[in-house]
């Protein structure tokens, strides 16, 4: 009989080891279909590593891809900590991007020292407000936020498409459904000349530190953790549970909104309806891989971004579909979910007679 014994407090070192092991296991499992496709596994992985780390350009591309993932990962992590299931980062990202475009394409003319912060603020606010609706529906009426946030993604994407076909369509865009370009004064500066990497990365890393600090050191963070771990006890202890949910919803939505700001004002320069290849959803994977730790989110986002960028490069070299990246990411998530069991329990194989715990 296999028996699970609960472990005591989990050391950070153990969490890191288990996360790394899960990532490794995912690579091993993903090698199986690669073998069937007739690839040399080592060669393919070598190509992936080269594609993500092989040159300064490759490396900065990987960091650029990681930037929105860090932010959507944080959005998921902070919400999930409070057991507020925000599945709507994708929609909040588009809302943030839309607000950035609304403010940053000429409606307001200000010097960049004022306009950039305004664009950032507008994007964060839009993301936060989008998440406020589902949060209020949850706290007031008990509506399941998983459903509302998920469905809002489609509502917002359709709204963005409508705006891009209508009022916000670029008249100079040759008929393409895209917004006017972000003004130079509103754009996030590049970090390196001739590379696409931009200040969004600094914002994302700053956000990760800020969320870490919030959860670990502040009264708000204490209340978020208490509500997430045992809402009944938190309410009984006088913690304002509803307010905490609203706070978390705003923070989470704002972080996802920031991801949209970075993509539109740092990378693309204008808004299209295919701005995000599912960064909002990948953020959930990032958060889970990171065990909902804000610092872990940074590393998990780097991992996922390396896989995506590396697989793109590998597929160009070998002709294997870059869907392999999705496969590895999915495997990694499954491995992490399984490894959570190892974190929380010791697994022992014992005789049939040992069974339940003895009280006290």
């Amino acid at each position, binding site marked *: 009989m296999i028996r699970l014994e609960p472990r*005591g*407090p989990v050391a950070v070192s153990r969490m890191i080891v288990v996360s790394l092991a899960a990532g490794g296991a995912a690579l091993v499992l993903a090698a199986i279909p690669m073998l069937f496709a007739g690839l040399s596994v080592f060669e393919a992985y070598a190509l992936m590593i080269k594609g993500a780390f092989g040159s300064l350009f490759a490396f900065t591309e990987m960091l650029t891809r990681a930037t929105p993932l860090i932010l959507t990962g944080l959005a998921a992590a902070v919400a999930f900590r409070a057991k507020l299931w925000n599945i709507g980062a994708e929609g909040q990202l588009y809302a943030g991007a839309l607000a950035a475009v609304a403010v940053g394409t000429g409606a307001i003319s200000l010097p960049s020292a004022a306009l950039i912060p305004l664009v950032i603020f507008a994007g964060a606010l839009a993301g936060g407000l989008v998440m406020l609706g589902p949060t209020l529906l949850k706290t007031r009426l008990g509506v399941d936020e998983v459903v509302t946030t998920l469905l809002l993604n489609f509502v917002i994407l359709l709204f963005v498409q409508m705006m891009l076909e209508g009022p916000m369509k670029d008249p100079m865009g040759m008929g393409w459904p895209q917004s006017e370009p972000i003004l130079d004064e509103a754009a996030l500066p590049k970090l390196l000349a001739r590379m696409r990497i931009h200040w969004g990365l600094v914002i994302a890393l700053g956000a990760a530190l800020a969320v870490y600090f919030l959860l670990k*050191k*502040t*009264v*708000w*963070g*204490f*209340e978020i*953790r*208490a509500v997430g*771990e*045992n809402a*009944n*006890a*938190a*309410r*009984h*202890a*006088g*913690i*304002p549970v509803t307010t905490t949910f609203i706070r978390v919803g705003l923070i989470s939505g704002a972080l996802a909104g920031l991801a949209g700001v970075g993509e539109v004002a740092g990378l693309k320069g204008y808004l299209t309806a295919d701005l995000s290849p599912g960064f909002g959803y990948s953020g959930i994977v990032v958060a889970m891989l990171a065990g909902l730790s804000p610092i872990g989110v940074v590393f998990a986002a780097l991992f996922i971004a390396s896989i995506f960028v590396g697989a793109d490069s590998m597929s160009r070299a070998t002709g294997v579909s870059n869907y392999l990246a999705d496969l590895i990411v999915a495997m990694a998530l499954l491995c992490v979910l399984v490894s959570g069991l190892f974190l929380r329990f010791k697994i022992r194989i014992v005789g*049939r*007679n*040992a*069974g*339940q*715990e*003895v*009280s*006290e």
Partner: protein
Amino acid sequence: MANTGSQSVPVLKLEGITKRFGKLTANSDVSLELRPGEILALLGENGAGKTTLMNILFGHYVADEGKVFVGTKDKLSELQPGSPNAALEAGVGMVHQHFTLAENLSALDNILLGTEKLTSLGSSHVSARQKLEQLMLRSGLSVNLDTPVAQLSVGEKQRVEILKALYRDARVLVLDEPTAVLTPQESETLFETLKKLTADGLGIIFISHKLAEVIASSHRIAILRAGRKVADLPTKGSDQRQLAELMVGHEVAETVRDPKDAGDTLLELRGVSAGHGREVLRNVDLELKAGEILGIAGVSGNGQTTLARVITGLVTAASGSMTLDKRDVSKASVRQMLQAGLARIPEDRHRDGVVGAMSVSENLAIETIRAPENQKLGLLRFSAMRERARRQIEAFDIRCQSENSPARLLSGGNIQKIVLARSLEADPRVVLAAQPSRGLDVGATSDVHRRLLVAREGGAGVILISEDLDELMRLSDRIAVIHRGVLSKAEGTEKLDRATLGMQMAGHSEGDAA
């Protein structure tokens, strides 16, 4: 009394049972005999090994050493270890504390569940019904067999459980804390029934920690302490104090309440109605004075939970008013009630008392997390929190590895100490203690009682919501009874006796309480 012919073969014999879990020895060389027609009380604190022993008897565990014998006719035969089926076939029946009934099935279906072969579904109902009706007639256990279990009262559900065992021709019946959920009257009825059952030679073991009922209803008492059997004595001639000391292993400090005059009114409820369904409050008046303990007696599920939630500030009363120190607090939030000096010991300490994943020190600070001693400009003052936690751990004897261990790793008694430490340390005005000793062992219970009395000495008003009449009679200055959401007028404890309270708890009208 018992027809315990000492010559007869025992119906059950445990011989030298030892069971270890890793380093812990749950049972150490325990031997026990049960004669036909005998009622044996198994006493012991939490963790003394009662449940392990019974689980070995039922084949849920296999003993590391020792054997179980079951007496059939005139000889003993060894029971196959580790097989619940063998135990059932040998006529060992068990009534668990938490009933194992399917709520949506009728009583009859529940009793037959598992006794019929798949191929004979439904066909044997007629003969089964006849057998059960005979059983009910003989034992006095009457239940309407066709009622869905969900509609039965707790006492009736227990009867279904007992009938289930008897239907399977049990010759040994084990009851785990059978009176935990019953009114005093129901308990008495239960023990009368059990006595009747022993007339047919049924041997009964009941597990309990209520000393009074053990003395009143058993023939013999076996006491377990730390896995060993420390006493096996006839009930006749034993007294509560002696039993308690055998159970705990040392003298138990008896909690004594000095009579004294109560002070001014602290907390007052006027015409409070709240809640719905079973947990409803109807027009409740309550007055709590400084320096008194006001007991609220009642069987669980008669509105106590809602009463506690209203006073806590978790629920706003639909009508009526509540004042604390003459200030209106009808609409006060939990935090406002805390700041006004209310201390709470919640009924369900695991659900409402602690956040299991957070540390002992965080749990000790959770109610005052926004107070200046715990934060500055929204930043937590960890070292101050931990230092205070270390002091409270010391003062309240909370057994934990350190102030940083997660609260979920602590035992129930120690979790209760966390709750006591954080609520009673700050000299509260009003203490709301809901079922404060539920599930605690003798030592922890006496600690809780002592601290409530200390709070009372300090001039606090204490509301003690409990199902345990002994606890209420010992601690309370006045007692009111709650039944179906209606709270009776509180009377001085001196003027009350168990019988009257029991009648009131049953609401006078319930026929089965008589």
